[in-house]
């Protein structure tokens, strides 16, 4: 596994036909402050659309050459960009997931294989292994591909990692928007971390033991653990939802 390995020492350097790096970063400074003006939204859209050719090339390669089925997102939303700028000490021109895609795979073995394949397929990549360093419980592998002067992010998640991520996102939507970035009620945060740790434990066990599909004893234990965890999650969700209604 390649951990944060760069094929190149150069970072992504967006080369805009009409927007200079200074203009992009000044736009980012304004977005950080609050609701954007119409002019700034237009400028931001111009910037986001400039990732289109690189995005197309990468998606096409993943679909046609690697025979995988990614779901792409052509442009990060203005609010997600603004939130990221406020949350992290980062400039707009440094954001690496303006355009990107997501691939869901069954298990860690496939995740490792696809990550290595992506790393070998694209000349300039950087791999961020968030399984080794989870972000507030979020575990996945992100492959950043640098091409045509911009970066495009490929998220590679196992089904279990994706389940946790979608659960966390959904709770951020309807309960507290800060949950997924380590905010909100400390008890809720701990609860999400506990689920993430449980999933990490199963995946680690699976990697270590490499059980065959016929290993009924192993799969029975994991299935029982999952049922218990679902009960715990459902109970917590009921509490969160009833608190929200008050």
């Amino acid at each position: 596994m390649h951990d944060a390995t760069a094929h190149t020492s150069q970072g992504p350097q967006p080369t805009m036909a009409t927007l200079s790096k200074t203009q992009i970063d000044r736009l980012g400074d304004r977005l950080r402050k609050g609701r954007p003006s119409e002019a700034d939204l237009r400028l931001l859209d111009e910037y986001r659309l400039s990732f289109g050719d690189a995005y197309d090339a990468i998606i096409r390669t993943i679909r046609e050459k690697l025979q995988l089925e990614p779901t792409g997102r052509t442009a990060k939303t203005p609010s997600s960009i603004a939130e990221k700028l406020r949350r992290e000490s980062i400039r707009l021109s440094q954001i690496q997931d303006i355009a990107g895609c997501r691939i869901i795979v069954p298990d860690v073995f496939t995740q490792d294989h696809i990550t290595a394949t992506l790393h070998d397929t694209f000349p300039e990549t950087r791999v961020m292994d968030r399984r080794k360093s989870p972000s507030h419980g979020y575990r996945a592998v992100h492959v950043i591909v640098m091409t045509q002067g911009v970066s495009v992010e490929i998220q590679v998640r196992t089904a279990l990692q994706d389940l946790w991520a979608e659960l966390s996102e959904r709770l951020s939507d309807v309960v507290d928007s800060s949950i997924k970035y380590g905010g909100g009620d400390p008890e809720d945060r701990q609860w999400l971390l506990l689920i993430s740790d449980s999933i990490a434990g199963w995946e680690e066990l699976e990697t270590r033991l490499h059980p065959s599909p016929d290993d009924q004893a192993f799969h029975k234990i994991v299935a029982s653990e999952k049922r218990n965890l679902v009960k715990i999650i459902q109970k917590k969700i009921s509490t969160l939802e009833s608190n929200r209604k008050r």
Partner: protein
Amino acid sequence: MLFLIEYKRSEGRIVTLKTFDDTDRSKAERTRFEIELELNQKKIDHEVVLLDAADERALRRTHRRYFETAAQIANSLNGSS
């Protein structure tokens, strides 16, 4: 296929979902931006996202938070690998 989703985060609810053919990407991007402009003008904080998936089944698999409640997402743990 392209899916343009307007999503009300606080309610976890899709407001509109429009589909476009892959060949209509420019039109889809223009429509996305028009909705963003309109919502910004009205000070409405909905998420507007254009997603590019093989079909709706693939979209629902990779972006389930738009379609499923937290309880439904959690329940699927029982059937996961």
